[in-house]
């Protein structure tokens, strides 16, 4: 089980995946907006999305869980 965390504090702008989706290693799964920049969140691992912890528009702190893969 792998957890994708945000590397930067900001607002969840877009989430491209939902529970059950398959993701590849290197695939962009979400975009966090911070400092007016779009920060792509990329999965380092392949897997299936188990949980999406946040919704678009949520504030998120650096290092917090965004998406869990199984």
């Amino acid at each position, binding site marked *: 089980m792998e957890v994708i965390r945000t590397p930067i*504090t900001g607002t969840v702008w877009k989430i491209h995946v939902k529970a059950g989706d398959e993701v590849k290693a290197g695939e962009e799964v979400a975009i966090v907006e*911070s*400092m*007016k*920049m779009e*920060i792509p969140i990329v999965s380092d691992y392949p897997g299936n999305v188990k949980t999406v912890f946040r919704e678009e528009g949520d504030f998120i702190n650096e290092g917090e869980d965004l998406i869990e893969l199984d």
Partner: protein
Amino acid sequence: MTWEEDLRRKAARIAQGGPHNYHQRNKEKNKLFVRERLRLLLDHGIETEDGKFANEAAEGLPADGVITGTGKIHEQTVCFIANDSTVKAGSWGAHTVEKMIRIQEKAERLQIPLLYLVDSAGARITDQIDMFPGRRGAGRIFHNQIKLSGQVPQVCILFGPSAAGGAYIPAFCDIVIMTEGNASMYLGSPRMAEMVIGERVSLEEMGGAKMHCSVSGCGDILVQNEEEAIQKARDYMTYMPANYTKQPKKCGAQHPAIATPRGKTIEDIIPQNQNSPFNMYELIERIIDEDSLFEIKALFAPEIITALSRINGRVVGIVANQPSVKGGVLFPDTADKAARFITLCDAFHIPLLFLVDVPGFMIGTHVEKQGIIRHGAKMVAAMSEATVPKISVIVRKAYGAGLYAMAGPAFEPDCCLALPTAQVAVMGPEAAVNAVYAKKIASLPEEKRQAFIEKKRKEYKENIDIYRLASEMIVDEVVSGERLREELTSRFNVYTTKNVTFSQRKHPVYPV
């Protein structure tokens, strides 16, 4: 036995290092014998060796566990210190320390680079009175390193452990190359941590190569094996002069890694939308010579790129924001990484090129608690004090103190260039309009708000237009991406006669 035979026999025994089982253990870990490492590192092998017979009278301590001497790298004479891990795990006794001190003194007298090939378990506790506390005890090694720093290049290749006090050897070198799986550095071993503070962790977690090269920033270059480590050290030396009074060697003019006619232009790479990421390496490849990128701390704080390179044969240090990682925002680690690299280049006459696309320093409680202000100050101070030729190129945005940290016009760069895509401001249009007109926006009826915001953003953008800044001579020249390499070549050529002293004072009170 003749005198001659006796000498040969003794020297041959010393050259074999420690007992067979230690050699065997090294082999199992894919570690080379120290003399083999030196053979690979040096053009023609060891040329002079001092203290070979150190501790010859003692049993089982050939060369007292360290080889010191001189040889050549790319025909430049260098000094070296190389631990022999087959001799009591490369531990330091009294003569080990004295040998290290003497070769450091030699490097200073001769003003030539010094390489540390580290593979050592640390002090021999049984010898501590003779090697630890005194005037020529181990402390002197670090004192000498600090004195040598900025005089001659000091390179550390870490093949094995660098433990406890010994962990400061890499810390005081200019660059630290670590082999994955074998290299480690830590003040207290996992066994000691368990005893003293009750923490249970693996050696890799405590001080492994990958951790240090990606998390702590104590390592600069992570490699997979010893041959690669040695090759990296040799490559690094091609960018360095012998000492601070000399210039790095210039090569013949080369082609850029990617010639524009064959691929996308710089303008093609940079997205129209200031907020969208792009890969700064793609831009770098279009201005530097082919195969000339030598990156330092590639895995640590990758939102900034720090790399040695060549532009038309001339060595140039690049400090570039990387918008594809964390938006290229500056964090405490980003600032530390850049500050360190800038001082390295400035020490050895390596001109600096800043490629700017920076939304600013990170804000929020998280980074304030980490002391982003004092970390950021380190970068600004290092850049400000650097007297080598400095060119800043505003590639895209340069917002807030990000402009300052990246050699903005106030910090005496030799020139500030801008691409047509550049935008310089205290903050971006979105943030600025909110900051200035928040009350006004709130007072407007909802249906009118968006139109008002758009109008103000447009006005703001016109106000920070790059030609307006050029018109006010804030930037010295606006250059097309296509001409950037050529422009940089000419300007670095022109600036070679720069000879500036920043100040006559003793030293600044460093922001740390």
